[in-house]
């Protein structure tokens, strides 16, 4: 882990360690466990230690398609930070997964009380949201599909 994931982990945890009445604790999910459902209150968040988690979205008449997978070092969940504090996607473990679980309600209230900490956490969460937005925009181009100008994987029938 050398990139965004590692930086996020540092930014988030450095400011929080030792300041939560319920300290972050390790939780294990077996493969295939649903971690949260779309539309439910976002009252926790997790940092992945091992394994992978798939983010999915409800569609009528079939299993929820996976829109992105997360791996070690990634932040699982950012909806807890922004109103209305409700998950906008679902999450299910792909492999046996270990995570560090945080009490999001407690972190939010700490951020309200301590603006310097709040700024730090906002930067960390904002960086994750920004990275995922960038990735989503690139995927919107359907780069490997038919005809976007420029490059090998781009041409199509």
């Amino acid at each position, binding site marked *: *882990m*050398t*990139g*965004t*994931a590692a930086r996020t982990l540092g930014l988030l945890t450095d400011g929080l360690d030792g300041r939560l009445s319920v300290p972050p604790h390790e939780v294990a999910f077996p493969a295939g466990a649903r971690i949260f459902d779309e539309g439910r209150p976002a009252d926790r968040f997790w940092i992945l230690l091992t394994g*992978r988690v*798939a983010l999915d979205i409800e569609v009528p008449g079939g*299993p929820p*398609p*996976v*829109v*992105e*997978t997360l*791996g*070690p*070092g*990634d932040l699982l969940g950012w909806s807890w930070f922004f109103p209305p504090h409700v998950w906008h996607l679902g999450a299910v473990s*792909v492999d046996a997964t270990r995570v560090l679980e945080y009490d999001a309600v407690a972190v939010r209230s700490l951020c309200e009380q301590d603006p310097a900490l709040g700024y730090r956490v906002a930067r960390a969460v904002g960086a994750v949201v920004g990275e995922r937005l*960038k*990735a989503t925009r*690139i*995927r919107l*181009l*359907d*780069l*490997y*599909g*038919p*005809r*976007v100008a*420029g*490059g*090998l*994987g*781009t*041409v*199509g*029938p």
Partner: protein
Amino acid sequence: MTVPVPHRVVRSTAETSDTTTVLLEPEGPGLAPFRPGQFAMMYAFGRGEAPISVSGWEPPGAGGSCGRLVHTVRAVGAVSAALRGLRPGDRVGVRGPYGTGWDLAAAEGCDVLVVAGGLGLAPLRPLVAELVDGPGRFGSCSVLVGARTPADLLYRGTLRTWAASPRVAVATTVDRPGPGWTGDVGVVTALLDRVAFHPPGTAAFVCGPEVMMRATARELVHRGVPAQRIQLSLERTMHCGTGHCGHCQLGPVLLCRDGPVVGWDRAERLLTVREL
């Protein structure tokens, strides 16, 4: 301009719905040996010529010439559709080798990252073959592959063979998973978090759509990989293949002669040139 050497198709294998790999045998003396990352001008008789990377070869023929050539072609227009439609026994003209090729020697002693998007895996395949089969002159080696869907992944059998090798770690991701896909979903740069490498001592080889190559190179630089150790294959349209016609000029660079493989320290500026 050199004359195309007639080759006969020995085998053609459908990779995906629009992409086929052909194995070609020279009808007479073969071409000079290719290096990974170089390309040939392939001439579909009566249709025209297209630059196509060499995606493999079989043992060299007599007199140091290149033996059988492997090319993977995606049908996008008249020429590539004709090449994709080649069947065993068909004839095709081939000239080459052209272009700079990957500089694997520059990666000696480094961790190696190979990052491929879509058809970009074709020119990288012979490079990975050298990493897998060659003597251990490198640190950790990782192959990261992105595709549109699981069905669009090229060389699935080869990917499995590589994944079983202790020499390389292989990670794949798709934009659109289908039922039953348990691999990763997302952009290929997200796979950089799945493999171990020491950024200042890493060399990267990147090929795919330009947007993907830019995003990958920027992310690598951001993590501390030196720009000059990131090699990209700039595969914009070209015509003569020999640096004469100027069709593939990108700024001061003639891509068929000075490329297609270019370091990110030079490519970053060039990729802002829209025309071509």
